[in-house]
């Protein structure tokens, strides 16, 4: 089972004295603020978790892997994630 926003809202609800709908609104606002920051092209650094970085990609020639046909991939801005060493260490506390 995957963890979803609903599971996170549940945990937040258990932790603070807000109603479930308030907890949901706050969690939603956190993710919306994160999205807006990245949309502005600003890097997002969450210490202990990782960094989200918007990156500008230049136009390049790609290939349709099915047909082998060359196609132009337009310039775009993408988001990359680099995990914090703290997160990686926690994930490897128990031998994988």
């Amino acid at each position, binding site marked *: 089972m995957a963890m979803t926003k609903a599971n996170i809202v549940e945990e937040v609800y258990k932790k603070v004295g807000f109603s479930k709908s308030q907890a949901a609104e706050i969690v939603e606002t956190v993710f919306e603020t994160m999205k807006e920051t990245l949309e502005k092209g600003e890097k997002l650094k969450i210490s202990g978790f990782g960094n989200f970085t918007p990156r500008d990609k230049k136009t390049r020639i790609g290939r349709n892997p099915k047909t082998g046909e060359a196609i132009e991939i337009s310039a775009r801005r993408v988001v990359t994630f680099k995990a914090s060493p703290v997160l990686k260490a926690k994930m490897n506390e128990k*031998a994988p």
Partner: protein
Amino acid sequence: MTKSQLIEAVAGRLESVSKKDVEVIVDTIFSCMTEALTRDERIEIRGFGSFVSKIRESREGRNPKTGEKVFVPRKRTPFFTVGKELKERVNSVEGNK
């Protein structure tokens, strides 16, 4: 933007919630996500993206400085895939292209 600036920004948008509460909530969000990845559980945040834990097999690596052989152990690594909404929003601003 750092985590503390994120907390400031969220607190600024929600007048009825104190900065202290936002801080607890933001920390809860990321610790929940960290725990899920530690359990090898997928995370799906609709509109933002998903995180999965993948295994990187052990390999014989080399110290790029000295050329010396080193053993790199098997380990878990998190991977992030950008969600549809965030992907479109990040790429939609004029002048980005």
